[in-house]
């Protein structure tokens, strides 16, 4: 059997899932071919190494570093997030209500003052027109009308 054929069957040989005839052929080739034997051992050793992987561990100061990161991230909490924190939320709602109420009162007062000023201007204007009309004899009263003036004449 040629090396290329062995390579295709090597994974099945390692799994021991080849039929007896193929298994025998691969075995015979491995006994006679040094390079294919090396290949077989490299693959087998690497696969076996997964069963004895070193138990990698973090150093003893991991928690200290994590704690520092926690403190930093806490102090860097954006303002918008603070608003939504459970303790601050009711306080923010109360403060917002007071501000809105105050603004409402102020706006009401301001609008009221503007209306009073407008009424005063209207009253003044009406008075002026009446005075002018009196001066020009155009006051629409029956006793002062032009018709009664001529009739009386």
């Amino acid at each position, binding site marked *: 059997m040629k*090396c290329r054929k062995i*390579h295709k069957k*090597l*994974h099945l040989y*390692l*799994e021991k899932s080849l039929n007896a005839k193929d298994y025998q052929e691969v075995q015979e080739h491995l006994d006679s071919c040094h*390079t294919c034997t*090396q*290949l077989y051992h*490299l*693959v087998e*050793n*690497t*696969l076996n*190494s*997964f*069963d004895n*992987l070193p*138990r*990698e*561990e*973090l150093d003893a100061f*991991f*928690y200290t*570093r*994590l704690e520092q*990161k*926690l403190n930093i*991230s806490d102090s860097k909490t954006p303002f918008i997030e603070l608003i939504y924190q459970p303790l601050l939320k009711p306080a923010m709602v109360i403060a917002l209500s007071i501000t809105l109420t105050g603004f409402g009162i102020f706006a009401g007062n301001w609008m009221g003052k503007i209306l009073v000023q407008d009424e005063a201007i209207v009253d003044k204007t009406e008075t002026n027109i009446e005075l002018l009309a009196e001066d020009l004899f155009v006051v629409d009263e029956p006793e002062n009308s032009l018709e009664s003036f001529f009739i009386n004449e």
Partner: protein
Amino acid sequence: MTEKQLIESIYKGDSEAFKYLVEKYKDFIYRVALGILHHKEDAEDITQDVFLEVYKSIADFRKEAQISTWLYRIAINKSINLAKKNKRKVILTSAESNTGMQHIMANLSDTKSKNIEMIMEEEERKKIVAHCLDKLPKNQKIAFVLHKFDQLTYIEISTIMDMSVSAVESLMHRAKKNLTKTLTEVYKKILF
């Protein structure tokens, strides 16, 4: 202290309880991240991120679930996302990718003439293993890493991956098969 009590204590702000949780699980989480990312600094960053997320969202934890399952899921998601990001970064930053197979082959190109034991030097072996693991489909890689790096049982893996035990067995079988094929290809290029 039961797991439920531990969660309650962390929720109430008990820093000692949180420290206990970190010390208990940090190495398990680190090994999974390392198995997926093959990079110690990245794996440590992921482990930190996992515990930061746990600390911030402990209120969202469903108490009927196991905390280890929750930790593993966060670690796997974060590691897979970072691995994707790293892969994209490598593709974007190098016009001619010198990672993976090409990188390994470049390092080992002159080993044919050297003693074959040189190939099995720890660092080179790690690179080859990392390359072969990265070639596995996502779920096969996760199951394999959980089983081999953290020695989790198929039952534990099935809980973490939310699938049946037989599905995990199947994933492991296919992972081994694919690894053997990839390893054969890598070593064949070195030897022949």
